[in-house]
């Protein structure tokens, strides 16, 4: 893969993301329009593989734009960790979720979003 496929990949990602939004919107709408609240809110820690500021910002923004989830903030690994050449998961996002039930499922959801995002935006399409 190369930068030639980049627009296609981005478009594909956007289509997938639109679908995600529609599906999660219905959950939120249903909860919202029915009496009572059946949400199970929580905050989960999600380590990201995003390297650049742009990537992590996009990820955080997309999480936030997805109905039901919200990025609360980010934590940087200590400087020592950051200096390691193979450093990954340097940044940790704290994601607030309404309907995920537990922290792990939040991590799974975000992980998928992240993977697709990184594939779409990185010139080489890789996630690492």
């Amino acid at each position: 893969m190369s930068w030639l496929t980049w627009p296609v990949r981005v478009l594909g990602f956007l289509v997938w993301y639109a679908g995600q939004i529609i599906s999660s919107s219905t959950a939120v709408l249903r909860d919202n329009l029915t009496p009572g609240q059946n949400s199970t809110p929580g905050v989960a820690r999600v380590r990201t593989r995003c390297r650049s500021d742009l990537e992590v910002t996009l990820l955080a923004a997309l999480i936030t734009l997805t109905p039901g989830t919200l990025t609360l903030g980010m934590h940087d690994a200590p400087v020592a960790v950051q200096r390691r050449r193979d450093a990954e998961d340097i940044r940790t996002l704290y994601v607030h979720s309404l309907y995920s039930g537990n922290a792990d499922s939040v991590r799974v959801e975000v992980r998928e979003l992240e993977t697709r995002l990184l594939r779409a935006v990185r010139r080489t399409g890789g996630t690492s």
Partner: protein
Amino acid sequence: MNEILTVLGNVLIVAGALVFATAALGVARFRDAYMRVSAVGTAGGLGIVFVVTGALLLQPSVSNVVKVVLIITIHLITSAVGTMAIARSAYLTGTPLKRYAFDELAADSLGTERDPEPARKPAVD
């Protein structure tokens, strides 16, 4: 063609307004600030996108298309970033979380443990 666009535009606008209304409903109904922020970040962002797209269909022109694309892109970025900023500030200033199933942010806190249940009393007006 024009009629189709008009109808579609109107539909999109109403849809956007409804999406937006859910945000408002969320703000009115959700039990804590974070849930409200969540609702706003989404519906506020998307509702406007729908409405603007609908408006474009009612007033289609090349320059308007360019403007609308710009608007949508910018709006999505800015609404998300703004929402996140508010959410983080809310958390830092100790806005309470109510009845949480899990809170790993509190758990990761260097200092005192956070109690997921209303550890902090809600501020009252």
